[in-house]
């Protein structure tokens, strides 16, 4: 869909995204700061004989952050007083929905590349392992990014959307393996290296689910109308 945009439209779209980030102001740096902190911590703590410790931590904490920018970027539509005026603008819902979500997840992916590059540069993992970690985190980030999109267009409240993500995070960290985290997280057993076959099976399934949720979220956003408050 994005490739159909002309050069002028693409330029405008990029400017739109830049302004979206500027409007988020300081809060747009939260995922960056957290990921940098996790990367430093993970690099120090990483033990090649027990990769499960750091890898699980990365899987539990990094991908949910992909939803942050996406939820925040819909603030103007759902919570701002100007929300009503937005509904009269002639923008394409696909570009502002799927288009923006894809770009934001794309930008988030660069942070994941940074995490993996750091692990590699500290010589803690082989290239094959790094590629697999990268793939796992990337697919999971897509999943959470799309979940963020779905939450904001369904709940229409920034705080509640974040609350759901926080709940998922909470259960990921302290609740043991919930059905969702069991479904998403690639488990690496103690003393073992990463099983590539298991990763691929899981990733295909998670990615299919992501596409499914993305379609639902976009349909919902296309039908999104202003709700008059009495």
């Amino acid at each position, binding site marked *: 869909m994005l490739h159909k945009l002309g050069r002028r439209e693409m330029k405008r779209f990029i400017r739109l995204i830049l*302004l979206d980030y500027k409007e988020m102001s300081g809060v747009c740096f939260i995922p960056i700061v957290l990921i940098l902190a996790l990367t430093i911590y993970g690099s120090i703590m990483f033990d090649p004989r027990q990769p499960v410790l750091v890898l699980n931590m990365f899987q539990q904490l990094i991908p949910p952050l992909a939803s942050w920018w996406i939820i925040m970027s819909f603030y103007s539509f759902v919570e701002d007083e*100007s929300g009503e*005026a937005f509904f009269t603008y002639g923008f*394409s819902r696909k570009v502002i929905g799927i288009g923006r979500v894809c770009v934001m997840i794309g930008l988030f992916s660069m942070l994941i590349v940074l995490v993996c590059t750091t692990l590699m540069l500290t010589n803690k993992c082989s290239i094959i392992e790094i590629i697999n970690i990268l793939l796992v985190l990337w697919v999971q980030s897509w999943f959470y990014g799309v979940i963020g999109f779905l939450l904001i267009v369904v709940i229409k409240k920034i705080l509640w959307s974040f609350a759901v993500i926080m709940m998922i995070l909470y259960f990921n960290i302290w609740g043991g393996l919930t059905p969702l985290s069991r479904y998403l997280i690639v488990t690496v057993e103690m003393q073992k290296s990463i099983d590539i076959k298991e990763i691929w099976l899981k990733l295909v399934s998670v990615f299919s689910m992501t596409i499914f949720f993305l379609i639902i979220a976009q349909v919902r956003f296309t039908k999104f109308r202003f709700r008059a408050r009495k």
Partner: protein
Amino acid sequence: MDINNLNKMYGKLKALDNICIRDIKGIHGLVGENGAGKTTLMRIVATVLEKDSGSITHNGISWEETVKVRNIIGYLPQKFGMYHQLTVNEALEHVAILKRINGDPKEETKKVISLVNLDDKAESKVGSLSGGMIRRLGIAQAILGNPEILIVDEPTSGLDPEERMRFKLLLRQLGNRMTVLFSTHIVDDIEDVCDRVTVMHKGKVMLTGTAAEMIEMAQGNTWTVSSNEEKSGEELGGVVTDCKYANGMFHFRLVSDKKPAESAVRAEPTLEEAYIYLLHME
């Protein structure tokens, strides 16, 4: 623009009851008390709400064609505040992109900023603007892309007198370039700004015409009465619109369809009294 037999229900509440307003052009005011249905009507015209039945057309475009309509309208809602972290320039550029205007967003932004007289605030953050400036920014976002119809919902409420005057002049200026549909519950605004006016009450149209026609309807129904004691409207048999105390007497102005007292003298109605007469008649 023509509005024909428009109806809208909120559950069991009839918000709009068979609204017909023909040949809307220049600056058209909608006046009515809170809950009269002005905002509902504005929202339907602005395509943010769906009507239950009826039609709206303008130059051959039907409001069923939402995409086309959105290209010819600009809307300033009652509550407006946007992009607190962006500068005025950036906020309008963002809107220009969302509106998919034809020209260069930066150039178009400059033009509307100048038109609403916010040049010196172009690089200020939106969050730092005063209430009046935010309304002007609201008008700027609405007129981006040069729409044929501008819809402004109660833009003057909450503004200080100077900003209100400035805003009315701006609307007057815009009325020469586009059709402006302007709602308010402040009757003075109508008198100062509008070419024609529609009075709404409980979801119905009471009258559509000029301010002079509205005053004409109330001719012979506005009275002045003097009394040595303070009296209520009920005691006087009408709706009191003004009361002054001078020389030991209370001098009342009231609206009533019959002579309220022997000593009552007919007076020339103001637009506000004409408005009260229209509502009182119902």
